């Protein structure tokens, strides 16, 4: 095996040795595992990217509220605002980016189809960032979907060193990972070096450390949806910082180590149990799942 890596140090050594981008290294590593030819793998990722865009489009159409009553209609609201006269100083591009992140989670809450990136609860960040970038730059689907391999490469380092599940590591493991992956893809699209791609991921991830998973009522909606919208800005920011030459004091592998340690020591009430944080506020408690209407239990 020539293209496998478990850490960012290994990843950077391999791209240096073979003269590859992060996405190309990850792609070759996937082909090496026997999971398909290069063309098949690119086509599979392109299919995922088209499904991601469809999940954004579906969310922007939603006008009603979700089954829990916690979400629905907000991505449409912000998307309309981004085209209006009272546009904020963020400007239309980044207002849309937030709207797209919200949209994917609204689709998810409405039993629509999403692509877990890396999880369902964090599925909005990478699609929103990439679609926003694509619209801003006028790039092809082929170019943009390929950058998802850079996202996956950085994601693999997190997967090996820590975890992605909110139940095990808190929201930092879900939204934090998604944010690092999105920042890496954006940085590579803006022609960052592999070193800068990893720096972008390091800066995005370290600024989500400590984020707890406190879903109101146990639903994957609030605050998940807001985080999927707002953290798209975070990913763009981390990528821009890396492109300017800023370096994280703590290297990416050690940030992943910190993610794991914080996740392990995080109290259980902050790990997807809906027993702490926003879920345990007086308002949050109002959305606890209602008891089911009793149907005959199986005998």
């Amino acid at each position, binding site marked *: 095996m020539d293209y496998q890596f478990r850490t960012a140090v290994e990843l950077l050594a391999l791209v240096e040795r073979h003269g590859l981008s992060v996405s190309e290294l990850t792609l070759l590593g996937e082909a090496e595992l026997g999971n398909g030819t290069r063309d098949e*793998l690119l086509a599979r990722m392109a299919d995922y990217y088209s499904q991601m865009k469809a999940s954004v489009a579906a969310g922007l159409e939603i006008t009603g509220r979700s089954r829990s009553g916690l979400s629905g209609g907000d991505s449409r609201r912000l998307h309309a605002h981004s085209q209006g006269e009272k546009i904020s100083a963020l400007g239309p591009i980044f207002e849309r980016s937030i709207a797209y992140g919200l949209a994917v989670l609204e689709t998810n809450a409405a039993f629509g189809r999403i692509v877990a990136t890396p999880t369902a609860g964090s599925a909005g960040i*990478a699609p929103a960032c990439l679609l926003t970038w694509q619209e801003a730059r006028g790039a092809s689907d082929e170019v943009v979907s390929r950058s*998802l391999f850079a996202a996956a490469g950085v994601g693999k380092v997190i997967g090996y060193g820590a975890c992605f599940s909110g139940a*095990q590591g808190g929201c930092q493991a879900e939204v934090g990972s998604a944010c690092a992956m999105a920042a890496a893809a954006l940085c590579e699209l803006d022609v960052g070096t592999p070193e800068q791609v990893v720096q972008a991921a390091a800066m995005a991830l370290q600024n989500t450390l400590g984020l707890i998973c406190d879903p109101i009522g146990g*639903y994957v909606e609030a605050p998940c949806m807001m985080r999927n919208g707002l953290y798209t800005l975070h990913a763009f920011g981390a990528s821009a910082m890396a492109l300017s030459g800023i370096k994280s004091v703590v290297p990416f592998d050690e940030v992943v180590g910190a993610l794991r340690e914080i996740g392990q020591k995080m109290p259980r009430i902050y790990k997807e149990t809906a027993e702490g944080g926003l879920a345990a506020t007086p308002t949050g408690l109002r959305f606890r799942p209602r008891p*089911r209407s009793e149907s*005959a*239990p*199986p005998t």
Partner: protein
Amino acid sequence: MTMSAFEIIGPSMVGPSSSHTAGACRIGWAARELLGGTPETVRIGLHGSFYATGQGHGTDEAIVAGLLGLRPDDERLKDSFTLARKEGLQFEIGEIDLGPEAHPNSTQIELKRGELALSVRAASIGGGSIQLQQIDPFPVDIRGSLETLVLWHLDTPGLLARITGVLACAEINVASIRTSRFERGERALTAVEIDGSFPADVLSVIARHRSVERLARLPVLPGF
């Protein structure tokens, strides 16, 4: 273990929850495969968090969707109750207590199709992954990332040797094999996980063994 890029990006699934929706659908899908077709009547017992929070996550619809053969990325998942009526699948959903040791996202499903009755107990263990824990009264540990052959049979000497012999002849690599029984010579259940896929002729040779009551081929679960 080596990680695939598509474990990071993907799977494609219908929301909202990988454990409560996608995993639940996979459990129903696996139960249907073990039965060999769409059941006619089903009782679904939901344990712990599956019962408490399942309704909001569409766990009920997801299990029924799986029982109808829908995959976790099929957008008809949310309409599975309507589809079930059209396909003549009658189902009941209620609470079940599988004990303090059971995983919070567990279910016990009783299925019937013609003369055939089957019970499956399973847990959704995170990120859409599932574990089949019991088939009829027999404990199992099936994750569905490999194709699995499930055999209901009498506990008789030489059967396992026969199965592995047939598989060896077909050059099929066995990843795991596990037999579960309660009394010597009584009914037993064997699960064989392999790399690749079971050819039909291999299955028919195994099925002809006098001790084999029934067999079911469980393909790799959708999304793996």
